[in-house]
Every structure is written in C-alpha cells, then in structure tokens.
C-alpha cells in the first residue's frame, strides 16, 4: 500500500510525458483528399545529383545517379568524385527493395534501412490509399501514409497548392524531415534536403547537368 503513491506518480508522469511528446496530438483527423499529393510526386527519369552527406561530424560527397528502368524499377547509385561506387540500390514497382552493391564499410543493416526509408519518402513510395488519412490544423494539412513502423507525412497548405515539407515519423514525433526546392509537376526537384532530427545525419542533393547515355 505504501508503494501506491510512488507508482501513481510514475504512472502520472509517464502519462503526461506521453501526451506532451505526441507532436501530432493537437491536429484534427479528417478524411483524405483525393489527388492532392500525386501532383507533387517527382519524376526521376535519369538524373544526376551532387550529393553531400554529413553524419556525426563527418562529411562525404559524390554523385548520385537516379534512373527509372525499363522494368519500372528505380535505381539509385552513389559514387564518390573519383568514381568509386558506395552503393547501388533498386526500388521495384511493387515497393520491393534490393541492394545490388554496397561497400563493406556501409554494409550495415541499420544504415541500409535508414537510407531505404529516406529515399522511399522523397520518391513517394509505400503510399497505400486504403490506409491514408489527413491531420489538419488551421493552415496546414498532414497527408498521412502509415508504414509498417511509423508514418510518412506529406505536408501541404490548406489549398493543396504547395508541398511544404515531408516527414518520416514515429507514432508520436517526426524523426526526419525532407524538403524539395524548385519542384515542378512531371519533373525532378532541383534540390532535395533530408535532415534527421534524432541524430546528426543530413543529406543534400543538387541537380547537375543532364547525363550522356552510352
């Protein structure tokens, strides 16, 4: 019986912490809007980006090639300036994922999973229309797409005229934010920024001149 107040206080603290930590709690759940997000979907046909990666104080740069393949999959290849390939990922049409090549130093399941999820968000993948819903406040709309773990949000203005940002979140708070710069319908964005909020990891992509095919 003596332990009751202590247990109650712990429970109360956790309850308050739980409520205060949920950063989406103030938003109102509303039905999804048809055809809002689709118009912001980037078209990566054959693009070469300069990539800059900053991770816990270390900076890596190079070239990132994104190519839409004849089998409707998308390949993403990261090489350094001297041509050495860091990784080659494939994203299939059915939301499948394959690692075609990766250097031993980067071949860590947690890193591959993080990169996969980051790219999936900016490529507008895993968007199940049957599960989607909206969260709204007075001026912005969170278009929510639940994932196996967490939720991907595409955040627009109320009129759906502008994609403000994208978020990967846990159940309660955002863990990564991504932005497009100069994104026009049917094209690929001029720049893309990806920033993790729970550890120092950011990726910045800047489009380069068109590639020469063989």
């Amino acid at each position: 019986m003596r332990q009751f107040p202590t247990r109650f206080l712990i429970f109360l603290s956790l309850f308050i912490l739980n409520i205060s930590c949920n950063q989406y709690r103030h938003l109102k759940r509303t039905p999804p809007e048809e055809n809002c997000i689709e118009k912001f979907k980037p078209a990566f046909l054959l693009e070469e980006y300069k990539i800059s990666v900053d991770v816990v104080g270390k900076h890596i740069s190079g070239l990132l090639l994104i190519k839409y393949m004849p089998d409707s999959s998308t390949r993403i290849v990261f090489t350094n300036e001297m041509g050495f390939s860091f990784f080659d990922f494939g994203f299939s049409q059915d939301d499948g994922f394959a690692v075609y090549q990766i250097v031993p130093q980067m071949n860590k399941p947690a890193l591959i999973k993080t990169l996969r999820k980051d790219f999936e968000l900016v490529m507008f993948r895993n968007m199940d229309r049957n599960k989607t819903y909206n969260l709204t406040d007075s001026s912005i709309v969170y278009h929510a797409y639940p994932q196996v773990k967490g939720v991907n949000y595409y955040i627009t203005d109320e009129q759906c005229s502008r994609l403000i940002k994208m978020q990967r979140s846990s159940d309660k708070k955002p863990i990564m934010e991504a932005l497009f710069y100069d994104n026009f319908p049917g094209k690929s964005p001029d720049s893309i920024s990806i920033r993790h909020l729970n550890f120092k990891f950011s990726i910045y992509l800047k489009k380069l001149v068109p590639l020469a095919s063989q």
Partner: protein
Amino acid sequence: MIKTIALVIFILFNLPGIAQYTGYALSNHPETFRKSFAEATASTESIQSGFSQEKTLTMLSEKMNSTGKFWYRKKDKLRMEYIQPYPYLMILSSGKIFVKDGQKENQFSANSSKIFQQVNRILIDCVSGNMLNNPDFQARIFENAGSFLIEFQPVAKNLKELYKNINIVIDKKDFTAIVVEMIEVSGDKTIIRFQNKVLNAPIPDSVFNIP
C-alpha cells in the same frame, strides 16, 4: 584419352585467367620492362596534366564524366582538382588527405583507415610508377607498339572486395601513365585519361599546401 580431356577442361577453365586485352599481347620481356620503367620513373620528379574521368555503370548503361587538373611531385604529393561537373579538390601530402567540397573542408590522416591508406598508395603509385612494387597487387604486363598495359590484381582481402583489377596504360615514349582504369567487383569501371602532360617542371609547394 583421359589426359587429353583433362587438359582440354583445364584450358577451358583457365581461359579467363589468360585473357588478353584487345590490341595487346602478354609481354615476353617483363623484366626488361621493369628495369626500363624503374629507370624512367626514377628520373621523373614531377608531372602536371589535365585529366578526363569516365565512370561507366555497367548495369545502367550510363556514363558519368568529369574533368580536372592533376599535379604530382615526388615522392608523395598529389593534387587532383576537379572542375567539371563541379569544383572538388583533393590533396594528398605526406600521409595527410585534404578534401574541399564547396565550402566544406575535411582533413584527415591517410593512416587513420587502412582502406584510405591503400587507396592513397594506389593513387600515388599509379602515377609515380611504384605500383609494380605495391605488395597489395599482383601484376601482369602486356604491350603493343606504342604502350604497355599493366594489369594489377588485388591480393589483399579488403581490396579484393572492392576492385576486380586496376589497369595502367604506360606510354612507351616516356614511361608515364596515359590511362588508369579501375574495375570494380560489380563490373563498374572508372577510366582516368591524362592529357597535356608536362614532366619535371617545377611545382611550387603552395600547390600541395594543406591549410
């Protein structure tokens, strides 16, 4: 009969191992080449040149092209300055690596990572002519009328995971590298072609200064 079949099978299975390069034949006098090459490289104090780099992604049928300027000074100073598709600078000097990417500058010791140490040595050795003495690789020498092609196959386990082989084409006139070809395990390859070479012209220290 069994011996003949065994011999044929042996030859068939070893064909890739004795593969030749188009236009090149396996050199009959590798030791003569090694001697002449060592003499020529001993007298090379510095190299300045332009370069073009072509990365071929086999699976994607795509090429990524870069161009830049290159400086080497005996015995361990190298500067590669990429101009296209965007400015990027790398200086290797006395065991240190300096990288400038836009406004970001990074400096670290080549010895801080074994793989960096090895890649650093490959770069220096490719242009200085010391690659034949690099214990991480096994070399075979091919030649045609105008050039030698040295094929380096990695022996070190960690390099075997990265490179299938590295080929260097050496000009017979001055025994300097014309082309460096790095073939990765995936089949992707990077070809660096050196143009407008200037040998043994003085290069000021400032070119290799790490801020």
